[in-house]
């Protein structure tokens, strides 16, 4: 069981390292989105700092959907996915491994690059720490909800856009509380604990349900 998890995780990471693309595409996309706003909005410091939390999270949502499309479809097209379904392991476990790999490749880099955003948008140091923390809590949820959508739209035409269309509305709670936490940390005397609790709850719930739902969706899609 655990071994299946490791094999799939290692495989996906190895593949990504061979291709080296996804990590960089996602990072670049994130940076472009982030740097576009100061250029478009003008550099009024107050406004920038104010919209920073929202922008960071929107950029994270969009970056996460960008790589989602290929999460299962490349395996589907070359027949690897049906082989996964035929191994004597629990599909949810292997799906979970794939989700973790996706997060390591698209979510984690965003967490790590967050200080750069702080620099660009003149966010106070404390808030940058909060930003990294909520990204750490929130991006896995994005990967997990996204995986369900990716499994449902597997092999369909117009996959990428359809997928984002399905998934983005479901991301809203993470977006609202993720951005809210950062804003709260910049305001005086507002506790960010409720935000963190809510985000953690989302994460735990999605940890429990998402791999299972994704596995079910995959089984439906592969017929």
């Amino acid at each position: 069981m655990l071994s299946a998890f490791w094999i799939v995780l290692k495989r996906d990471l190895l593949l990504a390292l061979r291709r080296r693309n996804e990590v960089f595409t996602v990072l670049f996309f994130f940076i472009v989105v982030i740097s576009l706003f100061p250029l478009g909005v003008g550099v009024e410091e107050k406004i920038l700092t104010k919209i920073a939390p929202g922008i960071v999270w929107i950029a994270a949502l969009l970056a996460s959907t960008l790589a989602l499309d290929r999460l299962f479809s490349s395996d589907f097209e070359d027949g690897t996915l049906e082989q996964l379904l035929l191994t004597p392991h629990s599909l949810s476990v292997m799906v979970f491994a794939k989700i973790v790999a996706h997060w390591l490749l698209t979510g984690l880099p965003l967490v790590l690059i967050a200080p750069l955003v702080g620099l660009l948008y003149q966010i106070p140091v404390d808030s940058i720490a909060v930003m990294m923390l909520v990204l750490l809590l929130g991006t896995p949820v994005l990967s997990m909800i996204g995986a369900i959508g990716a499994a449902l739209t597997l092999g369909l035409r117009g996959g990428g856009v359809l997928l984002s269309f399905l998934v983005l509305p479901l991301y809203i709670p993470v977006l609202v509380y993720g951005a809210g936490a950062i804003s709260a940390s910049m305001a005086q005397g507002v506790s960010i604990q409720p935000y963190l609790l809510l985000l953690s709850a989302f994460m735990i719930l999605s940890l429990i349900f998402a791999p299972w739902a994704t596995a079910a969706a995959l089984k439906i899609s592969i017929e």
Partner: protein
Amino acid sequence: MTLQVNNLQCIRGDRELFSGLSFALQQKQLLMLEGANGSGKTTLLRTLCGLYLQEQGDILWDGVSIRKLDDQYRQELLYLGHYNAIKMDLTALENLRINTLLGGYNPGDNALMQALDAIGLFGFEDYPTRQLSQGQKRRVALARLLVSKQKLWILDEPFVALDVAAVELLQNIIAAHVDAGGMAILTTHQEVPLTTGAVKRLRLGEKQGVLADA
């Protein structure tokens, strides 16, 4: 060990592919599935794997429905479809390693290298499979057979893209597996003489039915 199929019916879209299909397969037996293009061979094989859900009928492994057995059944099963199920970015060895590991056992890299050599990929073990020819890619997929411990092989046109020598080699591999107490189901449009073991023939399409056992 037996694979028993009772009164199976499969529908694709709005066409009934076959119905009332029944047969049993014992150890040391090989089932050759025949039929024209589009007669439903692939669909039948995928149904036997549990990848496709039949409309009616049961598939039993040792008397128990394969849906119930779930991963216990899959433990005994090796399926090779039209697709090679190999990753173009990984080398032949890496592909084979991952596939066997996921199959549930670890024969070690030496055994894997030997399998690759035996199937005719000597010197190509460390190439990304993207850089192999069509037949060589198929061989990478087939190398799994040499290190497999599964009892039931389900092979969908395994001879495609292989050259004459490789076809013969693969015949021997399948024959050896069946002789050693395994079972195999395969489809092919090529005339392949499979001599040893009990060969059953099953025909799909117009004249559906189990043909004489050889």
